[in-house]
């Protein structure tokens, strides 16, 4: 039961993160086949993001800022800088969560680590453009401009997410934003900036919080 609920948790979290990563794809006017091919050429990604969480309980959205780093070999750093400073580190099968408190990084609770491990497993499929293998989402692509990838969840996950729209920027290889719509009127918008593709990344980024 607990695993099942966390699996749904991972779906939401995974989609938020994975959608952002997948969106870092070249060229807004490509057809689907060449778009998929472009995934395979990505060895690394780094970017900053601004996340706006719209909830019915709040008049104004919750705004978070952060950055992420990704290596196609299987490493990821997804980090929030504000309002809470926290980081998720993945290297191979190992996933660790930390939050910054009282001047030091502290490891987060174990349940969260397991949830994120499952998230990352889902993400790796997306990252490699293997949408057809997803048992969670069906996809459609509109070449635009701007290019858009629409992800529609299947039965079960649609209790949490109604849809994810990835809007590509004019500049090839850069996403403008990801919008996640949930039942009940809540939504999340992640806007990316300063995106770098296939830059050299220090391995310490994925080892140390």
């Amino acid at each position: 039961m607990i695993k099942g609920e966390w699996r749904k948790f991972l779906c939401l979290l995974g989609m938020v993160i994975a959608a952002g990563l997948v969106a870092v794809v070249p060229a807004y006017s490509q057809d689907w086949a060449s778009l998929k091919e472009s995934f395979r050429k990505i060895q690394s990604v780094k970017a900053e993001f601004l996340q706006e969480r719209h909830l019915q309980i709040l008049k104004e959205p919750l705004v978070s800022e952060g950055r992420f780093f990704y290596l196609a070999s299987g490493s990821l750093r997804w980090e929030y800088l504000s309002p809470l400073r926290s980081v998720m580190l993945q290297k191979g099968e190992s996933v660790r969560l930390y939050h910054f408190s009282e001047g030091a990084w502290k490891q987060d609770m174990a349940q969260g680590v397991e949830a994120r491990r499952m998230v990352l497993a889902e993400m790796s499929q997306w990252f490699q453009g293997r949408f057809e293998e997803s048992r969670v989402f069906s996809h459609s692509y509109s070449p635009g401009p701007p290019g858009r990838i629409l992800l529609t969840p299947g039965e079960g996950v649609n209790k949490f997410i109604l849809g994810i729209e990835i809007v590509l920027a004019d500049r090839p290889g850069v996403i403008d934003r990801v919008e996640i719509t949930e039942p009940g009127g809540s939504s999340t918008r992640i806007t990316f900036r300063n995106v770098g593709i296939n830059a050299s990344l220090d391995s310490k980024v994925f080892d140390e919080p």
Partner: protein
Amino acid sequence: MNLRKTPTTHYEQTERIVILLGHPKSPHPPFSKGGRGGICGGILCASKSNLLLRPFFLLAVLVLCAGCLSTPETPLLPGAPEDLDRCVALFPSEPWECVHTIEADIQGGMSSSLLGITKGDPAGRKLHTVLLTPEGFILFEAEQHGDTISVLKAVAPFESPAFARGLMEDVNLLFFPPQGRASKWGRSSDGAVLCQWESSAGYREELSLSTVMKISLVDRHGDLVKEALLTPPFVKGLASQIELRAHKPAPYKLKMTLLRGTP
């Protein structure tokens, strides 16, 4: 404890759970390890079923009891009538909405960072509380109308009724003045304003106003159950920092930083 389940409009796997509070200020641990009742309760429940282990459980109980903080009543010097008003003014008097970062430390060295949203209305003691991960995923959402709590969303390990009760009790403790009439108020020897309320179940809630504002909850045995330090400046009636320490039945600490608040 009275539980009633009704269909939820959001999460299918988590039925909407309505909890009728048995007694206000009867403490439950929202942040115990595993989220299902806490170590104190677990030991006491398990001890009956295994005679061989009983000495160890008794030892553990003694150790835990030794850790309980006994809080004698503070002698009060006569205070002014407005001192009671000052105590009650510690809490928002109008509907409010606030967002906090929360650092939760529970027993065993485990910790977690969360975001908390609370909307409240002192009239009718209405609350709407949401607990989120840093990523924005809702872990827990509940409403309170008077003594009735409705859990709207909850995912493991936050789905137990004990967690819901404990969390909402904490929110009540921090944002609503004690119910009923104050049993006494006045000044301590160091000049702090003190106000006390006593419940029919023998719990005592004490507010202390000094350079730091303190809310203490003491059980009928005189043991300190929870205490909260509210650090100024107060922004629109809300403390910029709150540190809540729970001692019984399971210890945990919440450090809350106000991100924004609107009355």
